[in-house]
Structures are given as structure tokens and as C-alpha cells.
């Protein structure tokens, strides 16, 4: 789950990290009022996307009038596919130097990774590609945390002068925010060095979706994903549904099997209409899942691929049969059923829908692709 700058920065401030004073504005008049209170400001589009500056979504304003005009230009812009509905009006800061800092989950190392660079303001990928020696990395033992000494070592010898202890302290605080709020990524870029110490000028925070249940209040301040109406319906049902541009509806259990089913549809020259898996605990919700697939008007045929392990085929088949008998859809449906509960599921299919499964998922997908033509 992504958080906009205006939702992420208060988390830094709570941990004692300096951030510029700011106000949120949804109209140009509010932006002007904010500038009257703050003095010279930067007006920043609030969208969960990078490259806001390059897109013209970040503008400096010396006066309330300039702030008003900047906000008028930015509000309503589209940046990275997101319409700008609000701007952060933030006091200008006298910057001596721009640095980069981040803490993220390093999957391969199975540890938190702290990244630090004196080349702030650019994308870390660009810094790492252009001047890899300028990116310092430190893996943290998550049980003991980021020690003061480790943070000091990370910033030593980088010509930070008197700022060195404060920057090290900043890293320790940043790490504490990463831990406290279950970040997948917490990035401050740029981190400004000012006469009064380091100030976080921007902040990107991505929360681990799996941890959201224990941060309910904070998660509510995250940016909702951009979803189609059907995808939103899926989300409300706690089903992972992604709408695609094809016409072969896909229903399978487990992400791996679902992806393999989509691959198979492609293999036969067809195009999947959706990704939808009912693996894990959601296998008991085959009925709403099938209703969701069928609600897509582009679906011309349907392939149902069950390979039960934890998910029981008979339970899933009950759901499919119930939805089918209730909706009586006219599109053809093709089945492949194996694994836990397969014998019972095949009996239900025969009795309730009068159908037999195909001997392999390849053949079921082939039939569905042909029927969709």
C-alpha cells in the first residue's frame, strides 16, 4: 500500500525527524492562504507516483499570488495516471546539500537494507548506475535493529562535516519508522542538509499489505489502488481480481495455477479476461468469484481450473454450481478438476451442470479459447 508524501511525512515527524512546515490544499485559494502563513513555499502535487518534478507537479512560489497560480496549474493535472486532487504547500528550506536515504525489505538477503548516498535528488537507480561507489548499503539484523555505531559507520568519510552525527541519528530514526509501521520501503529523497541539520524534503512510504491488519488506522490513510469498478467489487469481496483486455474468463485456485492457466490461454492464441484466484482461505468463496468473472461483459467463454491441495475441489465446485444455476449465463464453460476433493467435485459438476471435466487443463483452455472466437 502506497502513501502520499502528506500521509508519510507525519510518521517521520512523530519519530523526531525534521520536516518542513506545511499545509494541505485542495483549491488555489487554500494554497494562497497557506503561503500567507508559511512565507516562500513549494507547491507539490500529492499523487502516489514518482517523477512529480519532471511532470511539472512541483513548483516554487515566493508569494501567496504565485502559490495560488502554481496550485491552479497543478490541481487537476494527471501525473502517472493519477489526477491531482490536492497539493502540499510547504515552506522553502535553505539547502546546503541533498542526500538520499532509504530502508527497505531486501528479499534476497532476508534482512532490512539501509541505503545511503550523498547524491540526493536523483532516482536511486540512476545514482547506483552512474556512481555505484556513492551508494552505501548496510544490512540490519532485524532482531537487534540499527545500532548507533552502525549508522555512524555508514555515513563516515563522506565529507558530511559537523552534520555527521545528526545524519547518523536521522538514519536510526528512519529505521525505527520503517519497523514501527511495517514498511516495505521508506525512502527520503532528498534529505536536505540545512544550517539546522537534516530535513526530510520528501518521503515515500510503502506499507507491507500483509501487515495492514495491525495498522488499521494508518492503513486507512494510504492511497487506494486505482481499480476498475469490477476490481473494486473484487476487493470488497476480499478477492484478488485484475481485469485484463481479453475475452476468456479464468477461475482457478492459487496464484501459481491461475498464472499458468492464463499462460495456457495465451498458448492457444486466446486472451485472458481476468486474473482471479481463490486460493488459500478464499477457496470457500467460489460463488462470488464466479459472479465477478461473469459480470465482465467481454467474457465470451470461461475456463475453470481447479487443482486442489489445501483448497478442496468439492467446496469450490459447490460455489461454482450455485452461481451458475442462479445466474444461468449463456457463455460456455469448460472445466479441469484434479486434486483434493476431485471425485466429489466431478460428481457435482455432472449432477448440477450436466458437464464433464476435460482430461487436462490444456484441453479445457483450448476449448475455451476456441469457443471465445
Amino acid at each position, binding site marked *: 500500500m502506497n502513501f502520499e508524501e502528506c500521509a508519510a511525512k507525519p510518521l517521520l515527524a512523530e519519530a523526531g525527524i525534521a520536516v518542513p512546515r506545511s499545509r494541505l490544499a485542495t483549491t488555489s485559494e487554500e494554497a494562497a492562504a497557506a503561503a500567507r502563513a508559511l512565507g516562500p513555499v513549494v507547491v507539490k502535487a500529492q499523487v502516489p507516483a514518482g517523477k512529480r518534478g519532471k511532470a511539472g507537479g512541483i513548483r516554487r512560489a515566493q508569494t501567496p499570488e504565485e502559490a495560488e497560480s502554481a496550485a491552479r496549474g497543478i490541481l487537476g493535472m494527471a501525473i502517472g495516471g493519477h489526477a491531482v486532487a490536492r497539493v502540499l504547500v510547504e515552506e522553502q528550506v535553505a539547502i546546503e546539500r541533498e542526500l538520499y536515504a532509504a530502508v527497505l*525489505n531486501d*528479499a*534476497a538477503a*532476508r*534482512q*532490512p537494507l539501509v541505503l545511503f548516498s550523498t547524491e540526493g535528488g536523483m532516482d536511486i537507480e540512476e545514482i547506483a548506475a552512474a556512481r555505484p561507489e556513492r551508494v552505501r548499503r548496510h544490512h540490519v*539484523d*532485524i*532482531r537487534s535493529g540499527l545500532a548507533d555505531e552502525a549508522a555512524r559507520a555508514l555515513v563516515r568519510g563522506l565529507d558530511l562535516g559537523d552534520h555527521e552525527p545528526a545524519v547518523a541519528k536521522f538514519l536510526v530514526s528512519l529505521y525505527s519508522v520503517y*519497523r514501527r509501521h*511495517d514498511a*516495505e520501503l521508506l525512502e527520503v529523497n532528498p534529505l536536505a542538509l540545512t544550517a539546522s541539520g537534516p530535513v526530510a524534503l520528501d518521503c515515500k512510504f510503502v506499507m*507491507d*499489505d*500483509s*501487515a495492514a*491488519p*495491525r495498522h488499521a488506522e494508518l492503513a486507512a490513510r494510504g492511497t487506494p489502488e486505482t481499480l476498475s469498478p469490477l476490481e473494486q467489487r473484487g476487493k470488497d469481496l476480499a478477492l*484478488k481480481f*485484475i481485469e*485484463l483486455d481479453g475475452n476468456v474468463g479464468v477461475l*482457478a*485456485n*492459487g*496464484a*501459481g*495455477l*491461475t*498464472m*499458468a492457466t*492464463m*499462460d*495456457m*490461454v*495465451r*498458448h492457444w492464441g486466446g486472451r*485472458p479476461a481476468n*486474473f482471479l*484466484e481463490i*486460493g*488459500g*482461505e478464499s477457496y470457500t468463496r467460489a460463488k462470488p468469484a464466479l459472479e465477478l468473472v461473469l459480470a465482465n461483459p467481454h467474457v465470451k467463454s470461461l475456463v475453470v481450473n481447479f*487443482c*486442489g*491441495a*489445501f*483448497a478442496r475441489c468439492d467446496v469450490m465446485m459447490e460455489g461454482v454450481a450455485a452461481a451458475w444455476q442462479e445466474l444461468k449465463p449463456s457463455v460456455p464453460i469448460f472445466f479441469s478438476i*484434479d*486434486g*483434493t476433493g*476431485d471425485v466429489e467435485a466431478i460428481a457435482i459438476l455432472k449432477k448440477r451442470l450436466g458437464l464433464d471435466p476435460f482430461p*487436462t*487443463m*490444456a484441453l479445457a483452455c483450448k476449448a475455451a479459447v476456441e469457443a471465445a472466437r
Partner: protein
Amino acid sequence: MILRRPDRVLIQGITGKQGTFWAERMREYGTAIMGGVNPKRGGETHLGLPVYASAKAAMKGNGFDVSVLFIPPLGVKEAALDAIEAGAKGLVVLTEHVPVQDTMYILAAAKEAGTRVLGPNTAGTVTPGECFAGFMPAFNAKIVRPGAVGVVSRSGSLGTLVCLSICQAGFGQSAFVGIGGDPVIGTTTREALEALDTFPGTRAVVIVGEIGGTMEEEAAEYAVTMKKPVVALIAGGAAPEGRKMGHAGAIVVGDKGSYASKRRALERAGVRVLATPNDVGAALAEALA
């Protein structure tokens, strides 16, 4: 990470619906279930097995080697640490949606204690004809039969389908190792491949991978050194870029972790990469001829 019949197994969360159902299946199949854990029901019996208040209590009681966790996501860290501190040799973490920082914490503790972890988000491991841990349909003879093919899979459902294809082609499995679909997991594709390479009776290995991460690329580095034939199936070639496909691990951003990258790395290592799960049988027949 490959379970053997003498391994003594504990079920944390044995009294729940799924814990109960799968504990019975495991025991019927031959897994040596020593008991279970429910912090609120220590001292009771369930399925004729002792229920302990903690893994530590279970270790003092009947003892165990491997613990299988049927525990809700936010309870996994505490349960896993209990088992590690009790001296478990192995953990099988079935739960999906474990917070990643919890997983990292568990894995750090496990590494120090020398505990091997499968998962999170794994379907478990099967040693056909001997025992299994997790929720694989080991008891379904259409899908699991003793044989010479080792399988390592990120996905339970697709791994099950590949096992089925292996049986349909007239082969069977030496062992199935489900490593789990999460981005951070205790045992990687490469580590499972190494274990299967040296596992008795294994003549070929199937890698069931997915887009996202770099585990298949790392496994390719080991595959190139193997004498046994290796075939691979990578799910997600048709997935659109930049969208998470259910497994948190399965996300493609640019070329990193993409289908093309994995296919290239595996083929360079001499691994045959299959177009569909149904090709597994024919590829094995050729490789083992």
C-alpha cells in the same frame, strides 16, 4: 527440508478446523505426529494426541523435530519463535499474508538456532510413500506416487498440477518441496534444488517457478553444475507488467524477475523450460530415456 518417516512432527494450531483436518491426513499417510499446540488448551487431548500450551512444553513432553504451523498470519511470529526456542530442527510455515518483517525476524532467529524453515505461504513437503507435512494431496494416488522425480515449487496449486502430470506420464516423485509464494522465504529454489540433487532415488528434478524475484536465476547457477536432468516451468509469462498477481512475490517490474530473464538464465544452464504443465511428462520421458 525433506521430511523422513522417523521425523517427529508437531502441529501448532492443531485444534483449528484446518489443523484438525490436515493432522488426520498426515497421520493416516504415515507422518509421525507427536502432538499439537494450543496455548489455551494445554493438557487436553485432540485426535488422541496430547495438546501442549507451547512448543517448548511439547519438546519436554513427547518431543518433536519439525513443527507445522496452522496459525493465523499475525500469530505466526510468536508461534515460530516458540518452536525455534524449543529446539525445532525444521519449521513448515503454511500461512499466507505473514508480515514480511515478521518473516525476516523468524528467519534471523532460525538461522542462529540452525532451524530450517519452509515457507511462509508453502503447501508443505511430501516424501511419497513415507510422510508429508502441510496440505498437499499426498494421499491422492493420481497426484502423488513414489518415483524418481524431485519437485521444487513456489506454488502449491501449480506444484500439485505438475505432480499430477508426472504421474500421468507414468513417473512418480522422490520428494516434493514446496518453498512458498512469499517474497521472503526460508528455503530458496536453489537450496531445495541442492537438497533434491543429493536426495536418494532422485534421477531428475522439476523446478516450478513464477515471475518475480530472482530465485530461478539463482537456481540456474546451481543447475549448471548438476549431472541430473532439470526441467522447469515458469508461471506468469502472460501476466501484465507491474501488477501483483496474488502471490506477493509475483510482480514484474521491467526486466527484473521477468519470465524472459528466468527463461534465459535457466536455458543457459542447460535446463529445459517448458511451455505448459502438460509438457512435463514428455520432457521427463525424454530426459530419463
